[in-house]
């Protein structure tokens, strides 16, 4: 029951949180910024609209948003938000989940290519490339977590005697992981400095340019999928960082979401104070966390002897 | 030799007929009209095969035992020679009428004389008689090479006669050295391999070794071992295809028999290691030389000739290695004769069809000459060691044997050379068979009379790879037992 509630809460709050980023950015820019509920308004507006489809497209184009949305939703189903067990969990679920995200990416890219637009193809190519590099980091993190906890499930990562937490047994090691995961989050969710969703030139975009041709409910599904994904990553980070622990479930959840919001705020700060990297520097940026985490995994050889 | 003594009592003493009959018919055929000559050729070939089988089964024995004898290895080679000869003759009849060779009676006669001399080689027991026979094969086959009467044929014949004569003259010196080794050892027996074998231990080792060196050089020249092989590609490419087939499928084996006898003697004298090393060296060197020239070869008959050098190298290598490899070498000898003759016969069709010996002038055989293509490509697959042809088995056995004897470096070179040769040959063969033909004018269409003999020879190789008659197996085993070979190590 708790799990269902937690899941529903996460789904509901997911559109809210990105507005926090926008607020922070607005603050830095000295503007007032959009209302916090902006994303809800947008979504409803989009669902109300119809769509225009390019004559070049086929059914794959329509599948892209659906698959992308579903895969992101799957992540939330398996991730323990707060200290509540997720709806579903089993040993090995991380593997299938990250691969499901791959599936989402697969169809997003295809949908982009289906439009036969050169810009969307460009974005698709970058997406394919950068997420491959990010995937290496993710799997390094999984290796480390497995090494430390002996489990392959989100729920088990954060429960039991060897729970992954900065305050826990291997806190020192996890600092580097946090840095790595943060960069992965920026990459996977197309945030600055990897991608700038707010730029006005399609040539320099990654994710935004891929969805240029989507409109109406399709676009809404894509947007929601992206919010879920961001929430998942920041939740992942928050579970590692989260120093608080309370016996009460609700308090725990609130504290957890506080940390999540903190993560969102940092994203906003980063977006405000850094510029997007030149495209040819991005791979180096994405490789940095890989090297960090790989280093940590090697370190564990000494730790666990 | 107990068995041959037994045979002496029961068998008919007419072994020499095997060589006398072709000798006689050969001389007759020279002066007969073409049609009659062809008939005589086939009849003689059939008769010869029949007599050979009788001899092999021990039904007939020599009348002059001081010069001739029945040995297992000799009978093996005689059997192969006779068998191959029959099919080549059938082919030759059709080929000669198409090739418009004016002197067909010369072919008919000389090929029979050639058969006679080769039969003599396989039966010779006396050192000098063997020498005479091998020299005689050179002389009898020279007219065959010159049959086309072109300038290049002339050149090839000249080189063939000259180089082989010089080589074989050295073999005579080798014979003298063996006799000297006998004198020094204080042995007084007839100079036959049979009797020398029984007293081999008493022969003077130094002179025996020297004798062996000269024998190997001499007969090796004839056999086509590098670096004495130089005549071989010329002669094989210039001779008319049936003659090339005979040279490659029969003559080289006979020359090999000379080397084999020498090695046998060395082994019996306890000097097997020395002669083995020499044979291995020559074998590998021949294969490497063949590899050099098969790459970028321009003439397909020359390629086949170099392939013969390679295969003689393989046989020498196998015999030198000993043990299991010897069995492989003997199988290789049989299958090489069958397949290589078939290949040369096919090359005759190709030559007739395209009118050129150059690879570049041929092409797209798969479409233009489907029957010949089948035979040619199957032959190529066979000679490269693909099953279901027998060379697969023989090469496998030789490699196994070589590893078993711990000759790692040699066998590495062996394998390297095989791969190189395969790479070179398959390039040419695929070019001939599949690539576009620039000038697809077919001079002479293929026909069954000229493809069936190739098929028959290939089929024999396949059959022998599926089912080796027990008697043949025993013959090979007894043959290689004399040089310490066997299937059990």
């Amino acid at each position, binding site marked *: 029951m708790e799990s269902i509630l937690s899941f529903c809460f996460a789904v509901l709050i997911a559109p809210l949180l990105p507005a926090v980023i926008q607020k922070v950015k607005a603050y830095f820019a000295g503007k007032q910024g959009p209302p916090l509920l902006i994303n809800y308004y947008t979504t409803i507006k989009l669902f109300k609209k119809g769509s225009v489809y*390019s004559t070049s497209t086929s059914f794959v184009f329509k599948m892209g948003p659906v698959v992308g949305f579903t895969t992101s939703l799957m992540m939330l189903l398996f991730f323990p938000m707060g200290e509540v067990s997720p709806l579903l969990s089993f040993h*090995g679920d991380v593997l299938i989940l990250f691969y499901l995200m791959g599936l989402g990416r697969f169809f997003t890219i295809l949908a982009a290519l289906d439009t036969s637009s050169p810009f969307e*193809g460009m974005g*698709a190519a970058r997406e*394919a490339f950068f997420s491959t590099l990010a995937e290496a980091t993710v799997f390094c993190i999984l290796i480390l977590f497995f090494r430390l906890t002996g489990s392959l499930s989100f729920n088990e990562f954060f429960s039991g005697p060897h729970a992954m937490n900065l305050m826990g047994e291997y806190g020192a090691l996890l600092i580097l992981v946090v840095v790595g995961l943060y960069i992965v989050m920026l990459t996977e969710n197309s945030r600055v400095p990897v991608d700038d969703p707010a730029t006005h030139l399609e040539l320099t975009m990654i994710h935004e340019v891929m969805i240029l041709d989507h409109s*109406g409910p399709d676009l809404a599904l894509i947007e929601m999928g992206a919010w879920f994904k961001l929430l998942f990553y920041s939740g992942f980070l928050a579970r590692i960082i989260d120093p608080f622990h309370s016996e009460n479930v609700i308090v725990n959840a609130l504290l957890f979401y506080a940390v999540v919001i903190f993560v969102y705020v940092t994203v906003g700060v980063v977006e405000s104070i850094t510029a997007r990297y030149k495209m040819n520097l991005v791979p180096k940026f994405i490789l940095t966390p890989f090297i960090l985490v790989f280093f940590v995994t*090697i370190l564990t050889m000494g730790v666990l002897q | 030799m107990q068995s041959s003594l037994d045979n002496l009592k029961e068998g008919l003493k007419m072994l020499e007929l095997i060589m006398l009959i072709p000798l006689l018919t050969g001389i007759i055929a020279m002066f007969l009209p073409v049609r009659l000559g062809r008939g005589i050729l086939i009849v003689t070939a059939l008769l010869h095969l029949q007599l050979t089988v009788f001899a092999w089964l021990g039904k007939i024995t020599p009348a002059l035992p001081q010069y001739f004898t029945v040995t297992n290895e000799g009978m093996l080679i005689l059997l192969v020679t006779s068998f191959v000869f029959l099919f080549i003759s059938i082919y030759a009849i059709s080929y000669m009428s198409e090739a418009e060779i004016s002197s067909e009676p010369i072919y008919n006669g000389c090929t029979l004389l050639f058969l006679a001399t080769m039969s003599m080689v396989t039966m010779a027991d006396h050192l000098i008689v063997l020498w005479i026979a091998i020299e005689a094969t050179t002389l009898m086959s020279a007219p065959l090479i010159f049959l086309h009467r072109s300038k290049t044929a002339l050149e090839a014949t*000249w080189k063939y006669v000259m180089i082989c004569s010089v080589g074989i003259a050295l073999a005579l010196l080798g014979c003298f050295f063996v006799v000297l080794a006998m004198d020094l050892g204080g042995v007084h027996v007839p100079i036959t391999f049979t009797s020398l074998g029984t007293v081999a231990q008493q022969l003077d080792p130094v002179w025996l070794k020297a004798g062996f060196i000269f024998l190997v050089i001499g007969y090796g020249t004839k056999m086509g071992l590098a670096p004495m092989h130089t005549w071989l590609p010329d002669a094989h490419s210039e001779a008319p295809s049936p003659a090339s087939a005979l040279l490659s499928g029969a003559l080289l084996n006979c020359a090999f028999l000379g080397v084999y006898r020498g090695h046998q003697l060395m082994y019996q004298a306890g000097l097997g290691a*020395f002669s083995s090393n020499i044979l291995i060296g020559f074998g590998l060197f021949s294969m490497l030389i063949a590899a050099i020239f098969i790459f970028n070869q321009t003439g397909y008959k020359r390629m086949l000739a170099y392939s013969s050098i390679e295969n003689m190298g393989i046989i020498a290598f196998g015999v030198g290695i000993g043990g299991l490899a010897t069995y492989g070498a003997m199988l290789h000898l049989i299958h090489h004769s069958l397949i290589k003759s078939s290949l040369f016969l096919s090359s005759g069709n190709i030559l007739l069809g395209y009118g050129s010996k150059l690879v570049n002038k041929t092409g797209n055989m798969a479409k233009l000459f489907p029957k010949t293509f089948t035979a040619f490509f199957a032959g190529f697959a066979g000679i490269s060691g693909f099953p279901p042809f027998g060379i697969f088995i023989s090469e496998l056995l030789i490699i196994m044997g070589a590893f078993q004897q711990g000759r790692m470096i040699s066998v590495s070179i062996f394998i390297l050379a095989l791969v190189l040769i395969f790479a070179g040959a398959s390039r040419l063969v695929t070019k001939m068979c599949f690539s576009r033909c620039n000038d697809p004018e077919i001079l002479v269409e293929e026909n069954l009379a000229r493809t069936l003999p190739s098929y028959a020879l290939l089929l024999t190789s396949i059959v022998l790879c599926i089912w080796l008659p027990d008697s043949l197996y025993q013959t090979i085993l007894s043959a290689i037992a004399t040089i310490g070979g066997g299937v059990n190590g």
Partner: protein
Amino acid sequence: MDTLFVSMAVIIAGGAAGLLLCRQFTLMKLVAIATTSVGCGIGLLFTVPKLLSGGAELAVTYNWLHVFTLAFKLDSVSLFFLIPIFLVPPLTLLYSFHYLENKDKKLRVGVSYFFFSVLVASMALVVMADNMITFLLAWELMSLSSFFLVMYDYEVYENRKAGYLYLIFAQGGAMLLFATFALIYRHTGSFDFASFASIPDASKLLVFILAFLGFGSKAGIFPLHIWLPKAHPAAPSHVSAIMSGVMIKMGIYGIFRIYLLLDAPTPVIGQIVLATGMVTGILGVVYALAKQDIKQLLAYSSVENIGIILIGLGIGMVGVSEQNQAMAFFGFAGALLHVFNHSIFKSLLFMGAGSVLHKAKTKNIEELGGLMKRMPVTGRTFLAGSVAISGLPPFSGFIGEFLIYYGAFQGLSSQNLPYIMTILAIVSLAVIGGLATACFTKVVGLGFLGEPRTAQAANAKESGFAMGFVMSIMALACLVIGVLPEPFVRLAFLGIQDVPAAAGFNTDSFIVIIQHISKTAALFIGLLLLVSLFRKMMYVKKEIGSGPTWGCGFTQPTVRMQYTGTSYAAEMIGFFKPFVPVKTVYTGIRKIFPGKTTWESEVVDIAESNYQLRLITPMLTLLGKLRWIQHGNIQLYIGYIIVAIIVLLLFL
């Protein structure tokens, strides 16, 4: 066992019927396909129940040529490999019914069916062989028959070259195997496989490396893979399917078999296999990404999948040497399952490529586009195959990779080198997965989606019924295995039941995981359907417009402005620069008023170019120089003889 021989006889009979009936084209195709398929069916009916019943080992021997015995034995590994051998050919043959339509090539089609049947039978013999001779015999037959299949379209120069290259690699590999077996024979004096374990440990490593190279040249490990991307495009597509889907797995079988037989304790073997697997996998997929020819791309993708399978085997072997049974078990099982899965989706993809080639007359991605609408069945099945080969759930590719991952994660408890190797293996698998996604989004996205780039592609029609039917079945199979993996995973477990390292391992807990995976996949599909339904509902009674693609302000787009495969891959290729050299030719701008200029780029296979540069060219130069030996001068020829004598006399 006799059933298998019967099935092989039927298969060969089918091929022979193709040869004999070649004058009646359609009848010949029907008879050949039906008979061969029946033969395969008999084989399957024997194999699968045998494997399921945990079949006792079967062995038969026949005497051959006095010296040898032909020995056959079936254990679980053989039985497992027999499944794709008997399963894929009937499907590809059915496909070929509409694929081989040229009646002018009657004889050739007949010959092709004959060698196809020989190939199938010889592959079956390879996995059944129980001694060196039998194995090599079957192996060589397999190489030879597949060569003829590759040469089907020999009129094309590239195809001849490909056939030639294939032949050399086949024979070179076979020679290495000869050497391997001979080396073993040296120690044991026996041809039997059973005796392999008794050779001294010191020799085992050498034996294994030789065998690994020999088998690897067939399987296509880097850098012995260069024949694959040439031979597969050359062969007709149903042949590429069987070669890539099944035949190259014989190399894997060989590696696995020799490993099992050697029973070597040295950990180096596992590390070699693992490292080779990683290199092969990553470079294979990068090259696949770089290629624009669909069949060539698929060939490189086969190299990649061989890499994945080798990673699985390597994980298993490291597990054995680390005495980590779980690692060993899942490594081996994952490798086997991936062999099976790959045989299906790679065949499917090759058939799809063949269908495209058949109708659009080109294999070049840059000339395709928009086929999803024009060839719906081919497009959809190809899409399914692409998802499967990228290892994404809920399709079959994921299951095999999951097993391998699972095995690898079990190995993380090791220390030192095995640990680092395991980490690298997991990361490589992840990278391979990501790049494979990139690679197949490229094929599908550029080849099947968007607008057709040429008139040929625009005029393409759907292929014949037989082809579409087969591809649909296979696509469905990919999905079924992905959603209901349990029986197939069990099959893979049964496949390794005779492997000593895996014996007695309790898989119950893992089966639970697999059931979970199955449920997750089902859940995902359910959710997907729900969301689709939701989306449908959202669009009810709404205005759906259609117009040209948004060109960011540009209003007159042409089909040539679409993103190209080359640029799609360029950045990723650039990342692997030293290993994936790109050759560019730019004519440059010279004059004040420059004329036409061109710019070309081509990805060069580093292995191929290095062979050319460092091996073939020097060798040919050397051989060319040595040719003066035969200079035609008789005086010097005689001199050779004298030199030979003098040299030999020195040994006296």
